[in-house]
């Protein structure tokens, strides 16, 4: 229903069902059947929604703000946009992936484009692009509408309260809501409490749309999100405050005839303030203040057109981002020590993107996308610039990069089969951390990282393919894979001549380009519905990543498997799930990674929907980690343990 209001998204939403490279998880509680959603429904955190997506893993540094990893590539190689808006995290230690600044109630769905075939606004998306689709009630909906969510989880006493209301008419709509989460320390399997794993978060949002004319729409969004007292057991510090303002205003014209469909222009601004805090930690050798700031202002203009053969989009975007972070250390009694860790880097980026979905005879389609982007960067903080010049005497205070991507996917769907093949090339500019970061301590390998302004752009050739066999409507088997062949792969490299800054750090790494590197992801899925009320889903993933010397890259997923049985009886749904990882064999030892042992856990969940006076009430309950296993996954930062047994229950009511 909301998709109607966002008709420009229709093309991608259609694709979601036809191509393996695109995946979507639905967040909103009311939506069509047969789509992916979290067993916890809308009460689930953004991180839990993300976990439902194929190709996605999550790096956990605590129980809040997990970092999405797509195709075994983290933030640097993944584009994350909120309804096409650029937003950049403000923490030098990646404590705040931008997905942490929205809440389930803000979103309609999360759309993932795997690999280089990204959404039009994405840049630097070698691994993939995530677009968080904001929830808008749209015009001509049931006039008034409200939704209340309440949830509780035993492990960590997680409480979730959310409410939102919507008003819709022919010419006007508005919806808004409020969300609150609070969690204490959680317990790992076996019952031991994980210190500093608490968090609290409030989120409020308002959207509104006005029809200026029959086919002209003005829409605005405002999101305020604030997390406080967030513990990071994997790090040496916690977060006192992580706060974001996200605003946008867009104007859209739609055509009902001719080949032009719509033209949307959106201007946006967002601002993030991130304040770390170590005052609650015991045995802090040196107290530190580490604030970070990020603000981004930008616009994009997207024209969609289609005829019998083509569904095309052209997008122009422009954004300006400022990133500043510093650190003050207070050794007992002595003078404070100060350094600029992100030297107030201003990035002006502009790009032009084209996508076209071409329908060919005999159930064949080709999707082509391309983007070229130009970027200018300036270091606005003199102190930070001069500090970095110690390491790079020849560096300048401004840089320019040109990046681009082009990708094509071919799909053929003869009866009972779906075959696809794709290729692409794309490049990305180094991130601010990679180019200008200054003594950023990484607790993963215990090294201090220094950026390298002389880095070359990283690029990759992607090849992907998938075969899906649908011998009957009740059985689907598919094999898919993608491979990324990198040139100038950017990674931290040992620099033994430099001395670490952080007390207890092993040494210093400086970002450098590896000549080449390879990441390959494969998966096998089987879907079988032996009985009308029973579905059996299985998924196996295997990935490898190698650097130029053939050694394993860090943070590459070991063999993973998921098997679940879903029962559906009238309004009751139940699910039993087994998830696990094999022992991590090819781990990035060279890069400071340690092997993670194998693990397997069981989850059960149930959902029941009832209608009382035309109001839908959905009750969800479940147990995660049924057998209270103590385990850590390969992507748990510093091997912090996952949650032990957790019983949850939540209710969503539609009024």
């Amino acid at each position, binding site marked *: 229903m909301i998709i109607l209001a966002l008709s420009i998204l229709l093309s991608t939403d259609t694709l979601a069902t036809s191509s393996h490279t695109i995946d979507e998880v639905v967040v909103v509680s009311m939506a069509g059947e047969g789509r992916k959603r979290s067993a916890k429904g809308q009460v689930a955190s953004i991180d839990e929604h993300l976990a439902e997506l194929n190709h996605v893993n999550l790096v956990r540094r605590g129980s809040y703000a997990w970092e999405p990893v797509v195709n075994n590539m983290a933030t640097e190689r993944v584009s994350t946009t909120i309804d096409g808006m650029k937003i950049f995290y403000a923490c030098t230690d990646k404590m705040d992936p931008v997905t942490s600044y929205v809440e389930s109630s803000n979103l309609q769905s999360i759309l993932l484009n795997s690999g280089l075939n990204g959404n039009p606004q994405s840049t630097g998306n070698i691994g993939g692009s995530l677009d968080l689709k904001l929830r808008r009630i749209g015009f001509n909906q049931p006039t008034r509408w409200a939704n209340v969510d309440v949830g509780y989880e035993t492990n960590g006493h997680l409480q979730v309260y959310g409410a939102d209301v919507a008003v819709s008419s022919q010419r006007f709509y508005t919806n808004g809501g409020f969300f609150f989460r609070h969690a204490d320390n959680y317990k790992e399997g076996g019952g031991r409490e994980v210190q500093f794993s608490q968090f609290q978060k409030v989120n409020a949002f308002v959207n509104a749309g006005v029809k200026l004319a029959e086919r002209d729409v003005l829409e605005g969004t405002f999101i305020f999100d604030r997390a406080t007292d967030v513990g990071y057991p994997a790090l040496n510090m916690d977060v006192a405050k992580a706060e974001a303002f996200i605003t946008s205003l867009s104007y859209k014209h739609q055509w009902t005839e001719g080949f032009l469909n719509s033209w949307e222009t959106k201007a946006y601004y967002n601002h993030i303030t991130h304040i770390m805090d170590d005052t609650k930690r015991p045995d802090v050798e040196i107290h530190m203040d580490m604030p970070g700031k990020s603000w981004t202002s930008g616009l994009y203009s997207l024209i969609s057109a289609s005829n019998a053969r083509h569904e095309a989009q052209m997008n122009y975007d422009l954004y300006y981002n400022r990133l500043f972070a510093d650190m003050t250390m207070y*050794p007992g009694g002595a003078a*404070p020590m100060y350094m600029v860790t992100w030297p107030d880097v201003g990035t002006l980026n502009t790009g032009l993107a084209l996508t076209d979905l071409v329908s060919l005879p005999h159930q064949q389609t080709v999707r082509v996308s391309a983007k070229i982007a130009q970027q200018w960067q300036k270091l606005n903080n003199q102190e930070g610039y001069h500090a970095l010049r*110690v390491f790079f005497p020849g560096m300048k205070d401004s840089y320019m990069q040109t990046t681009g991507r082009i990708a094509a996917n071919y799909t053929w769907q003869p009866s009972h089969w779906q075959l696809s093949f794709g290729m692409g090339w794309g490049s990305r500019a180094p991130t601010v951390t990679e180019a200008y970061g200054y003594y950023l301590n990484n607790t993963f390998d215990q090294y201090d990282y220094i950026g390298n302004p002389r880095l070359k752009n990283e690029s990759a050739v992607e090849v992907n393919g998938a075969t899906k066999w649908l011998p009957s409507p009740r059985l689907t088997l598919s094999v898919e894979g993608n491979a990324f062949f990198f040139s100038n792969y950017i990674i931290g490299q040992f620099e033994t001549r430099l*001395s670490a*800054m952080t*007390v207890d750090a092993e040494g210093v790494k400086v970002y450098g380009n590896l000549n080449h590197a390879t990441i390959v992801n494969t998966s096998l899925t089987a879907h079988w519905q032996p009985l009308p009320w029973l579905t059996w889903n299985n998924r196996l993933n295997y990935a490898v990543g190698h650097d130029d010397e053939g050694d394993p890259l860090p943070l590459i997923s070991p063999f993973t498997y998921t098997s679940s049985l879903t029962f559906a009886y009238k309004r009751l749904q139940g699910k039993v799930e087994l998830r696990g990882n094999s022992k991590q064999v090819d781990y990035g030892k060279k890069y400071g990674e340690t092997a993670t042992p194998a693990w397997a856990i069981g989850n059960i969940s149930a959902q029941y929907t009832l209608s009382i006076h035309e109001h839908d009430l959905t009750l969800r309950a479940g147990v995660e980690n049924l057998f209270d296993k103590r385990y850590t996954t390969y992507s748990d930062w510093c091997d912090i343990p996952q949650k032990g047994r957790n019983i949850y229950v939540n209710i969503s009511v539609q009024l």
Partner: protein
Amino acid sequence: MNKKVLILFLAIASLGLVSCNSNDDETGIVIDGIDLTSDVDCCSAEEALQVYRFIQTVHIIPELRTEVDGKYDVWAYSKTGTLHRGYNDLYFVVTKKKTSNYVKNFDIKNFTPLMHMVKTDMWHSTPVGGSFEVFDTTRPAVKRGWVSLLMNTSDAGNWQFSYDIEVLGSKGGVTSKTINVEALPEGQDWLKNFKVGDDTYFLSLVNPSDWKTGTNTIQAYISKKSTPATTPYALATETFTIEIDPRMPDMGNHTSPDNVALTKQQDGSYTGTINLTMTGLWRIHLTVKDSKGNVVAGGDKLKDGFSSLYWDITL
């Protein structure tokens, strides 16, 4: 910018001259040393303006002020108007009492700081720069020298300063003026000494308070203790090399890369390059080598692995 200011000054000055024609004793314009006609004893109007500007950046040391022959005022300056332990830049400027115009030709001689040690009732001097010279030709009426004071004033002892001056044939000076010498704050230690045989040498670090995070030029002087000790200590005639190893003791002895040892320059100073990666306390461990490369001081490895000879600076 400079030009504009100058033109403005000239305009004001000429107005003043015109309006004050009737009475020569009244100066009308009270900006030291600005004179349209250029004083033969000093400088052009532009140079005088540069001198004036420079003086605004330093402060008078009242104890070292004097008058010569009732005709000239002698002004001594330091950055703060006070002196502290370790290296201090000193500047001298002479003005004519009558016109306030600057005088270019003057000589400071026998500049002698002496410390009186209370307990032993003994006297000793301290390292000083050779002579007071013009250091920037755009302001030829300012002469610079330096003194590196071994200790601050305390119950143990106090400092007395003397110097002779000759201005355009007239002679004067200051004799045994007591000046309070301040201690440096915690985390600042810019003067160290070492012994080679019976000789004592002093390592004076020049103005580290001007340093900033990043790459800095490091400058120092090596002076040799005189006999008798009441003679100001002149620069050592030998040639040394001072190797530096800057560390942050509060940061697990974090260091910076690409520091360059101090080597002797034509003016007798030693300069090198020091890289500072952040603000805070930096301990600059020193290894002094003679011209043959033999370590003569420092370079010993204490428990912590670093030289016992070091300067401390806090950025």
